[in-house]
C-alpha cells in the first residue's frame, strides 16, 4: 500500500467534511415542519377537541323537510345524518340531503354583499357592505311605498314554510299590494288541485306505504323525487320485508321507468297523458266487477260508464287483461293504495287524471285508513293561510307585468326561474325590464347573475329557522333549524335580512325581534302554549332546549279519520279530458318526458360535486345530460349510445348524446332535468343541457301549472359522437347469478320481524 500524501489527505478530509455536512442537512430537512396548535381562547361549553358534537336541525335540500343531525368537530361540520327522532326520515337520509355539507363548504359560495358595476348580466360585481345594501333596497321600497306604488314590488322565493314564511307575509303587509310569489319547478300544483276538488282539502295527505299491501302508482316517482322520498323509501322497505307473512306489491304506471318503476314488481308503460284513463278503467272495474258496495255506487257507475277495459286498453296501450288483473289485485289486496303525480300530473289533463287516482282510492276504501291515504292536520305554526305557490301562469303574469314596466323592484330568493322556466316564457328578457333586482341567493346562479344587488344569505346549516314537513306524517310535527357552525362568510340569515329590511322601512314596532332566533322563540311560545311545561320544570326555556336537542317536536294525533263522503257533483265531474300535446306528431314524432334528476333535482344540486359524481341510478351516467331512447327506436333511427342528436321542439333545440334505455316507450324520449347551467359555480356551469328550455308553454287549465310532459320533439342526428361518462359496463348478468331472485314461496323471512329504528351511539 502506498502512503497518503498531503494533497490526498486534504482531499479526503474535504470529501468527508462535505459528506457529513450533507448528511446532517439531509436529516434535518426530513424532520417535521412547524405546525401550530391553536386552542380556543375561551372554549365553548362542553367542548372537547377530537370529540364530535351532534346538532339537530332541518334539511332544506328539498321540500320534504327531513330532520338531520350534523356531526361537528372543532366547529366544522363533518357529516350529515338523518335525525333518528324525526318521524319523516327516522334517521335515514337521501344522497342529496347528505350533500348539504357541500352547500355549506362550496367553493363557489358568495362571501359577502355584492353590487353590480357593469352592464346587467355581464358586469362585474364588487363587494359592498350590508348596511349599504339593505339601506338602498329599503330606500327604494320606501320611495315606492310613499308614492303608493308598492304594488310594483315583487318578492320571488322558493317555497318557504314555518316562521320564515310568516315573516315574509308580515313584511308583505308593510308593502300594500306587493306580490309574494313562491316558485318551485317541481311544486305539485295538480295534485293539490285534485285533492281540493275530490276531498275538498287542498293539502298533501299522508300516503301510508308502510302498511299498504298493494301500491299502484301513476307516474309518481315516490322513491326518486316525489314529495318525501326518504319517508316513502322507509315505507317501501317495511312494506316489502318489514312484516311477517305479508309482502307489499308495487305496480308502477309510467311511460319511462323511474327509480320507483325499477323497484316495483311490475312496470306498466302507458301512453303519455293517458294514465288517467287507466285509473278510470280500473275504477270502472272496481265498481262494475270489484264489488264496490257504497251508497253512491250508481253515481259512480254512471260517471265511469264507457271506461270499459277494452276502451281504456285502446286509449292507453295497456292490454285489457292487465287492466282487469290490476283492478282485481287492487280491490283484493287490502290495504291498497293508489298514488298519482309526477308526469301524470304534468299533462294538460293532470288534475283530471289525479282526481281519477283519488277516485280509485276512494272506491277501494283506502281513504282515511292505515295503509291508505291519511289526512294531515294543519301545521302547528307558520302562516295560517296556505301560501299560494306561483304556477307557470302566475310567472307569465309577472313576466308580462315586468315587460310593461309595472314591476320596479324584484327580490329573488333561492329560486332560479331563469333556469327552471322554459325559454318560451321569456323570463330572462322580462327581468331586463325590471329596474332593480335584488337577489338573496348564496350562489351566483343564472337569476342572481342578472341582479343589481346580491345580499347573500346563510346556508341552512348556518341559520335559524323552523319547518313543519309537507306532506306530514299524519300527525302534527314541527322542527327547529339551528345553526350548526358559525357563519363562514359575511352573509346573513334570510330571516335577519327580512328583519333588517323591515327595520329600515321604519316598521320597527311591528318587528320587535332582535333577530330570527328571537322571532322564532316568540313564535314557538305559541306552540309551547299547546302543552306547557310547569314553570318549576323549566318552563319555556326548558321546552325550547328540549326541542333543540331532539330536533323535532310533535303531537300524537289520530291518524284514522274514516272515509269522507264524496259529493255527487264531484262524482259527476270525474272524467279525463284527452291530453293535448304541443307540436304535431308528424313533425315532432316523440313525446318529451323530462324528469327530475335523482341527484340534482331541478338543478339545485348541480353545484355539488358529490351530486355530480353520483351515478344516475337508472343509467349510471356521471356529469352531463343525455336523451333516453327505446332500443327499437334507436335501431330504427340508426343511433347508438353516445351519438349526439339535436332534440328539437317548436321552441328550441339542444344537443345531447343518446342513451339507449330499455324501459321507455318507443315513441317517448326522456331527458333528466338538472344540468345545462350557464352559471352556478364551477361544478355546474357549462355541463349538459337543460330540457326545460325546450318545453312548450302549455298549461294545465285548472291550476295554470306548466304541462311539462306535453311537448313533442324530434331528433336530428348531428353525426358527432361522444363517449358517455358512466359507471356501468355490460348491463346484463349473462347468467352469472349476481342479483338472484326467488319465487313466491319465500315471501318473507325472519328478517321481516326486524324492522329497525337505527340506534345512534356516538354521543356528544
Amino acid at each position: 500500500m502506498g502512503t497518503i500524501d498531503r494533497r490526498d489527505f486534504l482531499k479526503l478530509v474535504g470529501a468527508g467534511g462535505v459528506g457529513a455536512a450533507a448528511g446532517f442537512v439531509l436529516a434535518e430537512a426530513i424532520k417535521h415542519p412547524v405546525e401550530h396548535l391553536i386552542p380556543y381562547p375561551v372554549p365553548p361549553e362542553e367542548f372537547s377537541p377530537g370529540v364530535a358534537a351532534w346538532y339537530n336541525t332541518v334539511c332544506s335540500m328539498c321540500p320534504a323537510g327531513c330532520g338531520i343531525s350534523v356531526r361537528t368537530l372543532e366547529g366544522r361540520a363533518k357529516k350529515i345524518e338523518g335525525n333518528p327522532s324525526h318521524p319523516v326520515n327516522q334517521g335515514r337520509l337521501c344522497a342529496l340531503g347528505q350533500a348539504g355539507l357541500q352547500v355549506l363548504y362550496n367553493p363557489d359560495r358568495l362571501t359577502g354583499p355584492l353590487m353590480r358595476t357593469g352592464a346587467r348580466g355581464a358586469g362585474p360585481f364588487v363587494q359592498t357592505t350590508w348596511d349599504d345594501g339593505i339601506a338602498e333596497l329599503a330606500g327604494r321600497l320606501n320611495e315606492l311605498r310613499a308614492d303608493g306604488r308598492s304594488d310594483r314590488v315583487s318578492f320571488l322565493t322558493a317555497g318557504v314554510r314555518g316562521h320564515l314564511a310568516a315573516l315574509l307575509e308580515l313584511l308583505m303587509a308593510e308593502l300594500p299590494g306587493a306580490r309574494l310569489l313562491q316558485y318551485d319547478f317541481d311544486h305539485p300544483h295538480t295534485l293539490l288541485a285534485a285533492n281540493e276538488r275530490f276531498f275538498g282539502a287542498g293539502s298533501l295527505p299522508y300516503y301510508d306505504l308502510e302498511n299498504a299491501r298493494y301500491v299502484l302508482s301513476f307516474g309518481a316517482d315516490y322513491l326518486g323525487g316525489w314529495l318525501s322520498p326518504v319517508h316513502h323509501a322507509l315505507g317501501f322497505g317495511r312494506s316489502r320485508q318489514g312484516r311477517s307473512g305479508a309482502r307489499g306489491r308495487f305496480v308502477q304506471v309510467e311511460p319511462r321507468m323511474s327509480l320507483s318503476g325499477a323497484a316495483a314488481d311490475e312496470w306498466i308503460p302507458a301512453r303519455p297523458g293517458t294514465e288517467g284513463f287507466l285509473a278510470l278503467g280500473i275504477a270502472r272495474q272496481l265498481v262494475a266487477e270489484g264489488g264496490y258496495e257504497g251508497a253512491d255506487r250508481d253515481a259512480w257507475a254512471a260517471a265511469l260508464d264507457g271506461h270499459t277495459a277494452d276502451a281504456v286498453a285502446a286509449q292507453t296501450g295497456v292490454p285489457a287483461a292487465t287492466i282487469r288483473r290490476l283492478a282485481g289485485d287492487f280491490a283484493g289486496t287490502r290495504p291498497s293504495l293508489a298514488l298519482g303525480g309526477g308526469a301524470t300530473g304534468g299533462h294538460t289533463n293532470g288534475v283530471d287524471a289525479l282526481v281519477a287516482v283519488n277516485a280509485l282510492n276512494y272506491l277501494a276504501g283506502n281513504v282515511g285508513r292505515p295503509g291508505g291515504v291519511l289526512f294531515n292536520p294543519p301545521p302547528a305554526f307558520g302562516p295560517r293561510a296556505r301560501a299560494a305557490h306561483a304556477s307557470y301562469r302566475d310567472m307569465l303574469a309577472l313576466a308580462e307585468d315586468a315587460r310593461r314596466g309595472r314591476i320596479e323592484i324584484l327580490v329573488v330568493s333561492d329560486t332560479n326561474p331563469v333556469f327552471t322556466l322554459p325559454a318560451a316564457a321569456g323570463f330572462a328578457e322580462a327581468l331586463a325590464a325590471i329596474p332593480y333586482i335584488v337577489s338573496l341567493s348564496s350562489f351566483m346562479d343564472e337569476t342572481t347573475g342578472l341582479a343589481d344587488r346580491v345580499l347573500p344569505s346563510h346556508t341552512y346549516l348556518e341559520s335559524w329557522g323552523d319547518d313543519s314537513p309537507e306532506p306530514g306524517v299524519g300527525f302534527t310535527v314541527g322542527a327547529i333549524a339551528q345553526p350548526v357552525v358559525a357563519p363562514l362568510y359575511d352573509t346573513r340569515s334570510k330571516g335577519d335580512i327580512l328583519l333588517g329590511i323591515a327595520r329600515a322601512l321604519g316598521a320597527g314596532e311591528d318587528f320587535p325581534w332582535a333577530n330570527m332566533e328571537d322571532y322564532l322563540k316568540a313564535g314557538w311560545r305559541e306552540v309551547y302554549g299547546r302543552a306547557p311545561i310547569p314553570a318549576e320544570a323549566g318552563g319555556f326555556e326548558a321546552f325550547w332546549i328540549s326541542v333543540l336537542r331532539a330536533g323535532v317536536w310533535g303531537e300524537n294525533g289520530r291518524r284514522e279519520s274514516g272515509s269522507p263522503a264524496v259529493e255527487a257533483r264531484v262524482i259527476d265531474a270525474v272524467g279525463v279530458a284527452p291530453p293535448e300535446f304541443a307540436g304535431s306528431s308528424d313533425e315532432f314524432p316523440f313525446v318529451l318526458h323530462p324528469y327530475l334528476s335523482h341527484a340534482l333535482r331541478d338543478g339545485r344540486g348541480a353545484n355539488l360535486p358529490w351530486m355530480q359524481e353520483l351515478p344516475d341510478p337508472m343509467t349510471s351516467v356521471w356529469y352531463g345530460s343525455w336523451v333516453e331512447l327505446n332500443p327499437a327506436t334507436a335501431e330504427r333511427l340508426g343511433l347508438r349510445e353516445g351519438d349526439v342528436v339535436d332534440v328539437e321542439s317548436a321552441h328550441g333545440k339542444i344537443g345531447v348524446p343518446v342513451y339507449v334505455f330499455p324501459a321507455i316507450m318507443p315513441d317517448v324520449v326522456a331527458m333528466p332535468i338538472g344540468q345545462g347551467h350557464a352559471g352556478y359555480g364551477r361544478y355546474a356551469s357549462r355541463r349538459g343541457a337543460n330540457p326545460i328550455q325546450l318545453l312548450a308553454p302549455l298549461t294545465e287549465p285548472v291550476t295554470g301549472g306548466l304541462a311539462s310532459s306535453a311537448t313533442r320533439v324530434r331528433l336530428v342526428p348531428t353525426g358527432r359522437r361522444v363517449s358517455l361518462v358512466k359507471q356501468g359496463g355490460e348491463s346484463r348478468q349473462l347468467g352469472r347469478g349476481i342479483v338472484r331472485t326467488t319465487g313466491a314461496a319465500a315471501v318473507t323471512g325472519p328478517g321481516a320481524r326486524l324492522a329497525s329504528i337505527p340506534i345512534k351511539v356516538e354521543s356528544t
Partner: protein
Amino acid sequence: MSFLDDFRARWRAYRHPGHYERFDYAWTMTIDLDRCTGCEACVTACQAENNIPIVGEEALAKGREMQWIRIERYWEGEYPDVKLRFIPMLCQHCDAAPCETVCPVTATYHNQDGLNAQIYNRCIGTRSCSVYCPYEVRYFNYNVHHWDKPLDEQLNPDVTVREKGVMEKCTFCIQRIRQAKDHAKDDGRRRVRDGEMQPACVQSCPAEALVFGDRQDPQSRVAKMMADPRAYRVLEELNTSPSVVYLKKVGADAG
C-alpha cells in the same frame, strides 16, 4: 418476531381451516335486495364519511371512480317486460380473500375482527389485490386528489386522506368500529352491542336494506337475517367466503 416466526405464523393461519371462526367479532353486512331501491344514499354517505375524493369528470371518463360502495345495475328482459335489478357492491370482507394472499407487503390482511384491512401507508401500489379481487371493489389513487377550498373543511379527521399510488377500499367504517369499542370499554363492557355501531352506508339507507352486526352473536340482527332462506353470497362458487350476505330479491311472480 423474526421473519421465520412471522412466516410460520402466517402460513399456519393461512392453512388452518377454521382460522377465521376464532375471531373476536365476525362483522357482517346483510343487504336485502328486495328492499334496495337503488337510491344511492349509501354512496354519498360513504363518500362523506371516508374522505373519498372528488375525482372529476376527466378521471371518471377514464373509468377511475373511487366510490367504495357502488350500485350495479342489471337489466333483464326486453321492452315491455323489462326489469332493472340493483345490487350494492362493496368490499365483501372475504374470509378467504384473494387480495390478502397476493399483496407482497401485507398492506392488506385479515384482522381479528374478521375484517379485510387495508393499511394505506404500507401500500406500494402493485394493484395486484385489485386484479385478484373478483368483486372489483378496490380503488386505486391514480393521481393526487384535491379538495377545492373550503371543501376540505368537511374531511373526517378519523380517516386519513390517501396519497397517490395507494389502493383503498371499504373498511366497514373501521373508525366507527374503533369508536364503538372505545365506548364499550368506557362502559366496562367487553363487547360492542348489536346495532351500537353502523357503517355510514347502513346508517343512511332509507329503505333499511342494509343491516350490520356480528354474525357470531346468534341474537344479532345480521345472524337472523342470514338465517333467511333468501340469503346468498355473490360469486359463492369462488369460495371467497364473503362477509357481505345478500338476500334475494323476490320475483314478480310472488303474490
